[in-house]
């Protein structure tokens, strides 16, 4: 028992030492996993003498749930566009006015007034990208700029397709494929969507993450997936290419915001400004390999990103990109029902 008692004391001492309230000179960032460049953090820590912690989440809904519940200790969060609106409307974020910060002038014109945060009063662009068709051209070398690859696959691809298991993305893609409006509750369109999905599923091999590990090894030959992963897959296997569905594809953007109950408000605002500088935005992009919304950052990014088809959207497809809005509960319930039926 004496060993147990000794260990118990050590444990208590450790517990006591680890449980502290936030001290001055700190910043607690809550971000997607594997999405924050450690060099960026070190640079910020040095420049402003602030200790930064980065805690990960793997989905917007987890982040929302944790922030809403309170007592989390975070100062900043980086949700996707549709959730930025939700965070704002639920009163969870601080109106930090990035549009009045020194580095705001670097924000690219197409990103400084998005519909989900007009005038950029709350959020600062972190990274953005697309969801498209990642195809191994060795297996299929036809037109890859269409979502019929996954919804009505050609014989070469049948049984070799992977879909990123994102309910909102898959449904949105299918709605666009049938010419509907995103977040629609139109039952005729949705019936077609449901039928297409159920019919297509027969030809899908899997609905999983991990494209970069699996596709170059030939586990599957085509996928509906994020562009950054497609980029990395191509680096591993050059025959892999990226297509923009002409029927409509999804744009996404993650933005950095300050939480209303942040304990380090000033440091958070400093970080928002910091991230809008081209050099730092370049650091962010070179880590996860996605584009950022800051002009002039190309000079600080790896050269292959400047010409990559995955990063720079070809002009002829620009119009087909749509941001996913935050759908109403009514629409979401229907989508969940379709998804459950699809994956039961």
């Amino acid at each position, binding site marked *: 028992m004496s060993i147990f008692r000794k260990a118990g004391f050590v444990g208590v001492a450790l517990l006591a030492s680890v449980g502290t309230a936030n001290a001055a000179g700190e910043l607690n960032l809550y971000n997607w996993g594997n999405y924050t460049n450690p060099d960026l953090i070190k640079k910020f820590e040095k420049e402003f003498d602030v200790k930064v912690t980065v805690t990960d989440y793997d*989905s917007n*809904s*987890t982040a*929302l*749930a944790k922030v*809403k519940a309170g007592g989390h200790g975070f100062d900043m969060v980086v949700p996707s566009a549709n959730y930025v609106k*939700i965070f704002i409307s*639920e009163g969870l974020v601080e109106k930090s006015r990035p549009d009045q910060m020194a580095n705001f002038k670097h924000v690219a014109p197409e990103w400084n007034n998005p519909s989900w945060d007009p005038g950029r009063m709350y959020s600062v662009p972190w990274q953005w990208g697309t969801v498209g068709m990642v195809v191994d051209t060795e297996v299929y070398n036809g037109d890859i700029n269409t979502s019929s690859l996954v919804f009505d696959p050609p014989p070469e691809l049948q049984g070799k397709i992977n879909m990123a*298991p*994102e*309910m*909102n993305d898959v449904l949105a893609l299918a709605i666009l494929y049938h010419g509907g409006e995103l977040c629609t509750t139109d*039952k005729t369109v*949705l*019936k077609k969507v*449901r039928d297409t999905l159920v019919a297509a*599923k027969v030809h*899908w*091999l*899997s*609905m*999983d993450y*991990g494209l970069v*590990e*699996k596709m170059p*090894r*030939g*586990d599957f030959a085509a996928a509906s997936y994020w562009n950054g992963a497609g980029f990395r897959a191509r680096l591993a296997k050059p025959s892999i290419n990226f297509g923009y569905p002409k029927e409509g594809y999804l744009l996404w953007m993650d933005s950095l915001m300050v939480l209303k109950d942040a304990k380090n408000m000033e440091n958070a605002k400093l970080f928002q400004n910091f991230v809008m500088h081209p050099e730092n935005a370049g650091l962010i992009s070179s880590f996860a390999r996605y584009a950022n919304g800051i002009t002039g950052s190309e000079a600080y990014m790896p050269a292959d990103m400047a010409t990559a088809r995955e990063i720079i959207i070809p002009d002829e497809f620009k119009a087909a990109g749509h941001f996913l809005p*935050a759908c*109403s*509960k009514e629409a*979401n*319930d*229907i989508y*969940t*029902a*379709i*998804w*459950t*039926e699809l*994956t*039961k």
Partner: protein
Amino acid sequence: MASDQLRKGEVRRNWLLSTPALIILLSAASGPLLVVLVYSFLTPGEYGGVVWQFSWDAWISVIFERDIFDDTISIADAHLTILWRSVSLSLMTTVVTFILGFPTAYFIATRPPQNRNLWLFLITIPFWTNLLIRTFAVLEVIRNEGVINTALIAMGIIETPIQILYTDTAIMIGMTYVYLPLMVLPIYASMERLNFNLVEAAYDLYATRLKVLWRVIVPLVKPGIVAGSILVFVPSLGTFVTPRVLGGGKKLMLSNLIELQFGSGRNWPLGAALSITLLAMVMVALIIYIRTTQRDQATSK
């Protein structure tokens, strides 16, 4: 009178012994579950969470579903399919881990006493690595360009790779891999106490090996078998990583279904109701299981 006092003292002592465990459990496991129960009777919030308004909707949705397009009400076939899938997978995993784990536990228990702990540790060491990594390691073995297929092709046994990955077999392999020590350890704990004099007596009475196994050894280690089965069956009901990584994620498991409600589905009350239903069903099954095996033990004594 005196024995009554003794008995009361014993009961009180037993309760006291269980108290620390109960305190921890009530504060960090069962207690918070009451929150879940309460949530199952509320209305879903617009973007997740709940609105404090009473509603039976969640509970109704567990059993009944309204067809999206023609508004007919029917039994929630999706829920039943998913439930059945999870239950059968768990049952199979339990059986397979038992078939593999019983001999393994027996093997360890019959080693010389000073070596047993070594073998025990050897069983658990792979599990010091992370579940995700272990699952990916299994992936490496069974995928089309993986160890098994490459070896078989190199030996000329097959021409094209066998598709093991993303099949139900792959899921079974993965699940067995993950849950094996949970079966081995409790059975071993029981077996280690096995009095081989009883075994020897049985042999002296000209019993065959099989009879000895079935009639003498198994009943004596029954507590371990029961513990092992519970430790495999029940947690495997809540599994979702292994089926998704190895099975391809095309079919929802119970855990995925519940997770969906707390995530993109934005229906916390339904998630809560589904969980309470699951909890209730398993508890009933467990109680029946434990009572039956306890009865067997009582009668066999």
